[in-house]
């Protein structure tokens, strides 16, 4: 029996590792036709090759800097040329940098906003026309609990992710009449490369702050994203869903 998602076209930005890679693999199991994005040429190819080997699907691999409007347009043009539409869009590409106020360099501040907030905006803004051609189109953006709850040392990063949450809520209202749903997920502490720099004490501190007493896995987030892209969430839009194991920050 085929999956309800069989043949749906999904673009996942930032799919070379972490949550994006987990989302790509999850959607592959559901039969999506995938377009996998990575920032650098070939960076998403490893994920694509794994998916081809494991699921027999050959994703379209694209690359570019989402903070560069021309790159985003070029990526979306490739989607148009291959598929003519988008049914699902996961706006995951992002960067992380921690730092206390007064100690954040200008370049880091600009890069965080450029990729996380402006890049997400370029992506959805450019993809709207492809989504309008899709069937039951659904967009999921990656916010963060740092954007919904905030935390010391995460002010700038949190601000960029708060922008994403606000974008999702407003876009849901604007695009709802066209049948396009827009939601965001706000992950807590997830065991990705972003947390690799933590020492044992730092890791234990974050586990202790999580009600379920463990770090999240990328697949924990990917499963929620897959739900939000699916028909099972057909009456859900404009929501920012925290996937954080009951985090207290």
């Amino acid at each position, binding site marked *: 029996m085929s999956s309800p998602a069989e043949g749906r076209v999904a673009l996942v930005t930032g799919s070379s590792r972490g949550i994006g890679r987990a989302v790509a693999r999850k959607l592959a199991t559901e039969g999506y036709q995938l377009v996998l994005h990575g920032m650098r040429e070939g960076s998403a190819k490893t994920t694509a090759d794994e998916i081809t080997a494991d699921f027999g699907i050959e994703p379209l691999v694209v690359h570019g800097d989402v903070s560069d409007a021309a790159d985003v*347009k070029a990526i979306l*043009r490739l989607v148009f040329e291959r598929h*003519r539409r988008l049914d699902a869009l996961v706006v995951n590409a992002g960067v992380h940098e921690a730092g206390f106020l007064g100690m954040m360099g200008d370049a880091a501040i600009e890069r965080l906003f450029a990729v996380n907030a402006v890049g997400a905006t370029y992506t959805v*803004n*450019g993809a*709207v*026309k*492809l989504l*309008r*051609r899709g069937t039951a189109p659904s967009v999921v953006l990656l916010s963060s609990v740092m954007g919904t709850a905030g935390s010391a040392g995460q002010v700038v990063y949190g601000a960029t992710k708060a922008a994403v949450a606000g974008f999702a809520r407003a876009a849901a209202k604007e695009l709802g009449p066209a049948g396009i749903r827009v939601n965001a997920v706000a992950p807590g502490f997830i065991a990705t490369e972003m947390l690799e720099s933590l020492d044992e004490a730092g890791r234990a501190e974050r586990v202790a702050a999580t009600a379920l007493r463990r770090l999240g896995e990328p697949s924990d987030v990917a499963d929620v994203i897959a739900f939000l892209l699916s028909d099972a969430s057909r009456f859900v839009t404009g929501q920012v869903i925290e996937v954080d194991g009951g985090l207290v920050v």
Partner: protein
Amino acid sequence: MSNLDRLRVAFRTALALPEDYDVDKLEYRGIEKWDSLAHLSLVGEIEDTFDVMIDTDEVIDLSSFGKAVEILGKHDVEFSG
């Protein structure tokens, strides 16, 4: 049907205008039905009709029937002859 006629049909379809409505001099917001919401539907109808992808800058620039002809020309849609 010529490409010019196909474009006329796209305008009438997207903007819910009568079949005999003269769209050649039509401008954005020149009639009540061509508002900002209808604009994206119009762009979608034009894209579907001619199988092209119109860039965001061109969407903003598409301010009249004449402009649509000009923009489609850049996408190798021919209107002469």
